[in-house]
């Protein structure tokens, strides 16, 4: 085939398939690096005194073998009431050291759909030497012996993701210690959050990280389990990176200084009041910067993802607006979004202080676009979600091992609000033709089956990937819980309560108990949802017990499910028959002189799940008028009687407040004999018919 013809055909094929490569957008003028890591006190107020350490990290990347020679100089303060004789270290990178680590054993080399094949290189962190600066009284001796400090014993635990430094002398309460830790980190070929892929390096959880010392002197440090994320104290970082000159780097904090030194590039990064330091490097990165509300937004994307940076920027702006209003000012001066390149998808969707990795926006194939399919899951939602973690774990630094719902679940809840504020109350995440699924729909769809396997409030280790359900339980059931509570008590009231929590516990380690106590304190233990019958004060108020609600939702597997059991329209009891008169004589009433009995409707509602929560009941009568009642649902079955009326249909939870409810279809019932289109069978039958037509055309004429 002639070359020109071949080229024309190829071009036509590419155009026909909609496979045109999107253009790489030109970068707007670069926003300068902020001079300081934190925004000014006039914006973010006074920071609480919760800093535990000052860390200086030196890291030299050998990009050919993906190895980092590192040194951590740590000044650690004992802020507890007890003396400390050892310091546990998290060595998260060792999860990827062998098949028999706790992490690898649980996941069997598979994480979020990305598989670690045998060809992928392992990773590890190896602590080579730990010393501490000699105390004043021994400094002279130490200098004389030619050592810079006193060597300390370091041992790994049974699982290599934990280690322990034994101190030669305790650190008293209020005291501090200067540690010098030399280590080597071999990055794995990325499939779960961290590692390398070609020239791309995502360097997260890469250095030895001390555990968290609680006020009573007990350490919180955990083996890195499959579903677990991380837990650390706040501190300041000065990080000195030694890199190949072509590397473009995104990192936690701000870049203070960069020097090209022969064949290497040296950068000095600084971050204030963060609990982790991560960085990414790739010579292919294109840089896009913008500014929003005084915060520098920096995106680093390889060319194949550059076309989508504007979508991520808009998502980031929306997230900043909503999160700042709901949970207080974002305290840092910068946020960096890393777009992992093709092949490094496993690094996507992970949060670190002032930096996160997002996922690529999916280019929907044209046949799907033709039938009206579009989605906001990929890319946009990831950016909203990962930025949300700057609050729910970055600022409210809960223990992700012990209570993962506090960051993942609360964050998912906040993401729904971001999208609703940006795109309207019914913001869709997925659209297929005229059909839409909103964030709330997805949250609701997840609270069946898997979400009922285990309670929410458990540590990460309790969620076995073989059993499944972690995402539905921790992310979406928590979100459903908070959205349901917000719907019941009112958005403004709930948002105020959560804002109180966010402001009260920023830069600390709040627990679930702290969150629940704040909600109960600000919302009240019990909340009146209104009269059971608004027209009849004698029916009394129906109340919601906030503590009981949270307890059921978070610490039980009770299913919230209510249904309309039946609608009975019949005549009221008449008076025909024999009755005694005033004189005690039996007299027959044959009905010839009395009115026929009036109609009477009885609605029977049922709580089919164990979860107790008040439910609104909307009753529509035969004359098309309707009333709403509130049913406490304390008892399994409730009856509502309407003398003189005939009921046409009944809907439970008509406003859709109970996102925790597992099954909604049986919330609706039409009275027997009432001819009402069911609204489901027609549409589905027509779609099935349309599919059959398409199949006929495809295989027939």
């Amino acid at each position, binding site marked *: 085939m002639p070359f020109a013809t071949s080229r024309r055909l190829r071009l036509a094929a590419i155009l026909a398939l909609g*496979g045109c490569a999107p253009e790489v957008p030109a970068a707007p003028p670069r926003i300068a690096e902020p001079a300081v890591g934190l925004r000014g006190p006039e914006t973010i107020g006074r920071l609480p005194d919760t800093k535990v350490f000052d860390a200086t990290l030196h890291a030299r990347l050998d990009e050919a073998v993906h190895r980092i020679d590192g040194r951590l100089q740590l000044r650690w303060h004992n802020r507890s009431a007890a003396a400390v004789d050892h310091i546990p270290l998290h060595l998260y990178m060792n999860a990827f050291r062998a098949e028999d680590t706790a992490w690898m054993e649980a996941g069997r080399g598979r994480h979020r759909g990305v598989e670690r094949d045998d060809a992928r290189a392992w990773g590890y962190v190896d602590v080579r030497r730990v010393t501490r600066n000699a105390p004043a009284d021994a400094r002279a001796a130490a200098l004389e012996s030619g050592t810079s400090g006193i060597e300390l014993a370091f041992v790994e635990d049974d699982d290599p993701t934990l280690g322990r430094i034994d101190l030669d002398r305790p650190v008293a309460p209020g005291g501090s210690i200067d540690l010098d830790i030399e280590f080597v980190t071999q990055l794995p070929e990325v499939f779960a959050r961290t590692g390398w892929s070609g020239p791309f390096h995502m360097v997260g959880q890469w250095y030895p990280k001390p555990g968290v010392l609680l006020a009573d002197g007990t350490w919180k440090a955990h083996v890195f389990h499959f579903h677990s994320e991380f837990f650390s104290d706040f501190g300041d970082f000065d990080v000195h990176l030694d890199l190949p000159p072509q590397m473009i780097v995104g990192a936690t904090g701000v870049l203070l200084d960069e020097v090209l030194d022969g064949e290497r590039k040296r950068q000095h990064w600084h971050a204030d009041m963060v609990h982790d330091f991560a960085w990414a490097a790739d010579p292919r990165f294109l840089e896009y910067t913008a500014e929003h509300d005084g915060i520098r937004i920096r995106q680093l994307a390889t060319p194949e993802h550059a076309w989508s940076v504007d979508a991520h920027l808009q998502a980031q702006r929306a997230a900043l607006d909503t999160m700042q209003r709901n949970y207080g000012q974002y305290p840092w001066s910068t946020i960096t979004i890393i777009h992992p390149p093709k092949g490094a998808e496993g690094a996507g969707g992970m949060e670190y202080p002032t930096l996160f990795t997002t996922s690529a926006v999916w280019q929907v194939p044209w046949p799907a676009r033709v039938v009206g399919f579009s989605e906001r899951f990929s890319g946009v939602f990831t950016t909203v979600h990962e930025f949300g973690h700057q609050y729910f774990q970055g600022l409210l630094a809960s223990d992700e091992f012990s209570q993962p719902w506090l960051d993942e679940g609360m964050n998912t809840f906040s993401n729904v609000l971001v999208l609703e504020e940006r795109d309207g109350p019914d913001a869709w995440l997925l659209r*297929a033709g005229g059909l839409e699924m909103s964030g709330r729909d997805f949250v609701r769809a997840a609270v069946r089956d898997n979400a009922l396997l285990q309670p929410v409030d458990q540590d990460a280790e309790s969620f076995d990937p073989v059993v499944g359900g972690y995402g539905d339980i921790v992310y979406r059931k928590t979100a459903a819980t908070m959205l349901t509570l917000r719907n019941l008590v009112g958005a403004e009231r709930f948002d105020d309560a959560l804002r109180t929590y966010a402001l009260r516990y920023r830069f600390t380690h709040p627990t679930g108990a702290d969150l629940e106590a704040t909600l109960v304190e600000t919302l009240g233990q019990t909340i009146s949802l209104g009269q059971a019958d608004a027209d009849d004060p004698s029916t009394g108020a129906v109340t919601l017990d906030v503590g009981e609600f949270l307890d059921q939702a978070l610490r039980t597997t009770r299913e919230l499910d209510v249904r309309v059991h039946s609608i009975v329209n019949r005549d009221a009891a008449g008076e025909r028959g024999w009755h005694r008169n005033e004189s005690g004589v039996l007299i027959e009433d044959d009905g010839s002189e009395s009115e026929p009995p009036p109609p009477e409707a009885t609605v029977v509602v049922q709580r089919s799940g164990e979860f107790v929560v008040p439910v609104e009941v909307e009753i529509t009568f035969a004359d098309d008028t309707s009333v709403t009642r509130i049913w406490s649902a304390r008892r399994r079955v409730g009856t509502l009687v309407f003398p003189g009326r005939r009921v046409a249909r009944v809907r439970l939870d008509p406003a859709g407040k109970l996102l925790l409810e597992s099954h909604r*279809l049986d919330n609706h019932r039409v009275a027997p004999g009432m001819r009402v289109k069911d609204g489901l*069978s027609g*549409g*589905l039958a*027509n779609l099935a018919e349309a*599919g059959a037509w398409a199949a006929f055309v495809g295989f027939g004429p």
Partner: protein
Amino acid sequence: MSTAVRSVIGAWRWLIGWFVVAWIVAMIAGAGVRAGVRAAPAEFVRPDDRILAAWLELLQLHPDIAVAAMSGWLASALIAASTTALIAPGLLVRLGGETRLSAVAARWASTLWPQLATTLWNWLLRVALLLAVVTSVGEFSAGLTAALLAAILLASTAALDIGRAAVVLHDAPGTSMRCTVAAFVALARHPKRAAVLVGLQLAAWAFAVLGFALTMRSAGEDIWPMRLAGLIAIGLGAVRLRLASDAGPLAVATGNP
């Protein structure tokens, strides 16, 4: 082309008959789903506007409804393929200008078996080619794989039209695989005709996709655009058959394969 269209319009009763067959098949597929939904143990009324969420819940609770839909689609595809094979000989004769029912019936009866045989050979070859592409996963990009699959389906259909026309109108030996091969060769030798046949098939697909998209966009409320698209696609199929008959007899060597 205009002659072909006029021939097809002249055979409108055939088209309507074919359309009715397709409609009945599609309606049965829809009726199965309708019955499945109504048999689900609840009395639904449209739950606000979150119809997709409601469908999702329904299908999670009653996956048999999805099975019913898929069975309907599969049955529709099979019935489409077999009715086309049954109708094609008579339609080809009718499109050739023969209006006497007895003559059409006689030709239909005498060529049905070789026409079915050439259909079978074509489908065997088509499946073999499709399998060859599908089992080469990883060799080609997803886009190229889709393009190859579509190209195989389009070329096979056009070749089948040519083969059928040659068997019915020119007594080509349909029972021989060589007839099928000769139809592909004839298709390749006349790129212009091939482009027209493939274009008509693509247009039929496009109408089907458009009709389905419109039904989707209306959340299943509007089915008539899909039915109309089906009728147009059937008409385009008939025009394609008529144009394929212009290919004339095939150069098929005698003897068994």
